[in-house]
């Protein structure tokens, strides 16, 4: 027996040494109960970096200020941010690490729909409350009672676009979208278009990361629409549209409004309307404070995803204050109520655990590369 033990140990020391870092390096601060750990899986590298990095700066800011304000009933919070490199499989492993090694009280993320899907299966089986920074994913997610979404479902984004379209009474719409985010939004536009008396006269798509889409744009132009929907997570289609002389107004979606893309548009960033939530240049009254703090901290303007990160931490802390850091189901339960965030007014009591209403949308317009907030509001409740 002893000999067996000995051999086993020797074998282990041999083979495990490589994994040592992986096994034991994980800090076990969670044990020494002062700080409360919150996990966050974000896409800091890879194609999703634009989202993840924005969200992280919002999260970090909220973490700092909330701790200064006394954290959760005197206990400070630590947000452990992990990078999934925009890959769902890695997101899952990171979630495992956060939940079982770091003993986090609650999960924030992921930045991308796919990563969220990969994590949510795990958080659901562990009853771990998760605040996703994405819109509602595959249908199954409706059955996950611990998964909250801070961004609206794509159906709502589509509605917001159509509301504006209707108000401008555009009937013939051309669509230029990428095969990822754009496809998701368009699938909903397709089904709802007729309700708004909108017909799609040309629908052209291109692969994520495409570097030239001028042919698709030309095809859209050839259909001679009254307005053009451009929905993509890059600046390429916007440039292409203008370069092939699509002079019609462009209506886009929240996912395309990040400064990363707008800067990429250069001087073509003109006459483009986004239904979104936060216009840093001209925030709504309840957003002003956040924008100022953010500007002070990073001396740049925040946008939706920074605000989402900020809200996520605040929602988490509220729940932890109410339910304490240990009872997962209690935490999730505590979250299930309306919350007026910086980005939007949520109602987590709603069936989809998001409960954002059209009235939360703010319409911004790019005029000569500058964002301006439109007075238009999508009044009708969803």
């Amino acid at each position: 027996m002893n000999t067996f033990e000995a051999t086993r140990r020797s074998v282990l020391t041999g083979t495990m040494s490589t994994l040592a870092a992986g096994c034991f390096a994980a800090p076990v601060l969670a044990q020494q109960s002062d700080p409360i750990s919150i996990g966050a899986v974000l896409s800091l590298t890879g194609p999703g970096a634009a989202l993840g990095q924005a969200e992280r700066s919002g999260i970090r800011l909220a973490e700092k200020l909330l701790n200064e304000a006394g954290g959760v009933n005197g206990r400070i919070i630590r947000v452990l941010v992990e990078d999934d490199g925009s890959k769902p499989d890695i997101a899952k492993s990171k979630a495992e690490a956060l939940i079982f090694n770091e003993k986090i009280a609650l999960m924030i993320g992921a930045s991308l729909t796919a990563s969220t899907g990969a994590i949510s299966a795990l958080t659901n089986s562990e009853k771990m409350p998760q605040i996703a920074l994405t819109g509602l994913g595959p249908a199954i997610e409706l059955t996950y009672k611990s998964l909250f979404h801070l961004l609206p479902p794509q159906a709502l984004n589509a509605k917001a676009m159509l509301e504006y379209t209707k108000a401008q009474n555009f009937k013939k719409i051309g669509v230029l979208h990428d095969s990822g985010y754009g496809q998701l939004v368009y699938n909903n536009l397709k089904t709802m278009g007729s309700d708004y008396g909108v017909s799609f006269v040309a629908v052209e798509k291109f692969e994520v990361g495409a570097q030239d889409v001028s042919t698709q744009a030309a095809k859209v132009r050839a259909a001679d629409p009254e307005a053009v929907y451009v929905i993509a997570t890059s600046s390429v289609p916007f440039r292409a549209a203008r370069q092939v002389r699509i002079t019609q107004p462009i209506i886009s979606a929240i996912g395309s409004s990040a400064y990363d893309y707008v800067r990429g548009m250069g001087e073509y960033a003109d006459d483009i309307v986004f239904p979104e939530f936060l216009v840093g240049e001209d925030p709504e009254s309840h957003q002003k404070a956040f924008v100022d703090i953010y500007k002070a901290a990073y001396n740049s303007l925040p946008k939706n995803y920074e605000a989402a990160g900020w809200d996520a931490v605040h929602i988490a802390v509220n729940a932890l204050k109410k339910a304490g850091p240990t009872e997962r189901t209690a935490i999730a339960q505590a979250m299930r109520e309306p919350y007026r965030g910086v980005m939007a007014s949520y109602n987590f009591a709603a069936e989809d655990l998001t409960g954002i209403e059209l009235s939360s949308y703010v319409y911004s317009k790019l005029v000569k590369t500058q964002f301006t907030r439109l007075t238009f509001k999508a009044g009708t409740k969803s």
Partner: protein
Amino acid sequence: MTATLFIQSLLAGITNGFVYGLIGLGISVIYRGTRVVNAMQGDFSLVAGIVLYLCSEHLGYPILPSFLAGVLAGAVVGWTVEIFFVRPTRRRGGNEESFLLVTLGGAFAASAAALLFFGRDSRPIRGLGGDNLLDVFDATIRVHAVWLIALSIAVVVALRLFYTRATIGKAIMAASIDPDGATIIGINVPMMRTLTFVLGGAVGGIAGVLISPLITVNYEMGLLLTLKGFTAAIIGTLGNPFGAVAGGLMLGIVEALAIVFVSSGYKDVISMTFLILIMIAVPNGIFARRGRAGG
């Protein structure tokens, strides 16, 4: 389908064709001189593009010196890669896959470094002739795109002369075709290989400064360009610079027509299927003078 649309798609196809061709050109040059399939050709262009941006947009230098700086940067990166990546691999008896992976690693590194130090934005750059458009009937083409086409043709011609006329060009060929023989007649083979990478890097740099004003500079552009360039180079038979551009043109135009006549969703399916069929039909490479399949 209107005539405008057709012309527009053709213009786009040709422009993209030359973009792919320019990258393929570099891959061909390096393969021709070293038998290395360079997976970071697109990242040479990424670096060049970044340098161009910093010079012309950030520091506000005039366009021409900025361009030269970009090309120079490409050449330097090429040199670095040969000295620190490729040469050690060769010394330690790496095989073809090793070279592919070493350069692939280089590509990952370049992209990661770009994200880290240059940021995640895609940066627009004013090209030759600014952002002005040229009207072709009712269709448009960027003035810069015309420059791109003209200059890439010039590069091809220059390379042709280099390989046929210049002594170094001949020496490079000798060194790659028969290293031992070349050594015997007193050619410094390792140096020729380094020179090849410098040349390839410079071509990548030219590609970079010409392409990035068209597509904006972005940390992810490298591998995407490499994939297309690789396709162009192989279709045109690896090692044949002229073929690379022709292959690129073919690919670009097929893509454009696929979008116009079939569906933009299936663009890649169509172009890639076409590609496979071509290769099966002409197993010796479209521009091969006889010789093994795959050039």
